[in-house]
């Protein structure tokens, strides 16, 4: 016996199996991201007043990425519509754009990550605190690594103090390149997730989201390329697959729609 309703709709529920399956899965995803959002709210509300950093992220890049994802969401649904109208080639083009958008998104994201990994916080033994870049832009430098590499000193470019946004820690520090003795440093850390609670939740949320982007794009790509033969043999099921992968993709987009204002703007 074949498993029923893999492509056909079951009359009393009005669904085929995979569609129900993906919605159930999305329900669990809502709980997953929901729990992280709740944690974000709690940590933020619970933070000492005035210590929650704002404006750490690059808003233009974020906006651009938001637009890229919205774009990909539209092409997904247009691709599906094209299949419904029997226009396979059009579908190929639309979904191709979707995959491209996913790539662009990931590239932009990796630039944003890189920005953070080469950005440093330094506390000297005399208590001075600064943020800035180390000459040569190494990633993930730490005090221990410096010592290991026997670097007695390094060149540091402190950030320019921002005019209106209150920047963490470097009020009053002159904007000039300086040489710092390793021996003078008490603490050196890049702006990774360990740096503060905001960056912690930022990296956790966006990395998890990025994993979803990669996963979703892979599935869409598989259906688009290697598995496209099914369009010839079983077009109805093929269209369903496109729809189901599309539902997942829209969800990924949806998560970002909330992530963007919450992390970048507020």
């Amino acid at each position, binding site marked *: 016996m074949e498993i029923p309703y893999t492509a056909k709709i079951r009359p009393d*529920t*009005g*669904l085929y199996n995979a569609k*129900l399956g993906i*919605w*159930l899965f999305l*329900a669990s995803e*809502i*709980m997953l991201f*929901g*729990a992280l*959002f*709740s944690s974000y*709210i*709690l940590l933020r*509300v*619970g933070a000492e007043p005035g210590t929650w950093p704002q404006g750490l992220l690059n*808003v233009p890049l974020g*906006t651009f990425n*938001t*637009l890229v994802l*919205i*774009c990909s*969401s*539209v092409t*997904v*649904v*247009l691709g599906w*519509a094209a299949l*419904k*109208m*029997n226009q396979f080639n059009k579908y190929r083009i639309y979904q191709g754009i979707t995959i491209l958008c996913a790539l662009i998104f990931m590239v932009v994201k990796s630039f944003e990550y890189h920005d953070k990994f080469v950005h440093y916080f330094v506390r000297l033994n005399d208590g001075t605190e600064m943020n800035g870049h180390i000459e040569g832009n190494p990633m993930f430098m730490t005090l221990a690594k410096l010592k290991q590499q026997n670097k007695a000193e390094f060149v540091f470019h402190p950030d320019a103090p921002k005019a209106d946004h209150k920047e963490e820690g470097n009020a009053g520090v002159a904007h000039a390149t300086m040489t710092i003795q390793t021996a003078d440093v008490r603490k050196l850390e890049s702006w990774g997730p360990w740096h503060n609670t905001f960056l912690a939740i930022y990296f956790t949320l966006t990395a998890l989201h990025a994993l979803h982007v990669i996963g979703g794009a892979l599935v869409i790509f598989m259906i688009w390329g290697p598995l496209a033969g099914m369009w010839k043999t079983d*077009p*109805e099921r093929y*269209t369903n697959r496109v729809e189901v992968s*599309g*539902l997942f993709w*829209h*969800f990924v*987009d*949806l998560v970002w*729609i*909330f992530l*963007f*204002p*919450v992390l970048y*703007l*507020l």
Partner: protein
Amino acid sequence: MSDAHDAQAVKAAVRKYLIIFGALIVGTIVTVLVSFVHFGEEGSNTINILVALAIASVKAFLVAGYFMHLISERKMIYGILLATVFFFAGLMYLTVWSMEPVNLVHIKADVP
């Protein structure tokens, strides 16, 4: 399924999708612009948060409702999502409520 009638409906839908696409882009831009304006009292950004979340919710509604066809989805799916939303709200609300200082007997310890 993909009979002629269906294809007609899909054609009409495509127009809808494009309109929504426009709306989403506008929404994004508005969110960004609005974030540079400060509403409400000095030092409180409650209104800003509400505005941003409101726009995001509208956008989410458009994506879920039209791109994901939720508007015309079946009862079963509504049931599942309703349950999920309920439990999510429970998780979020009860946790936040439980951790609100006025509901707790403790204070933040500044020193051990």
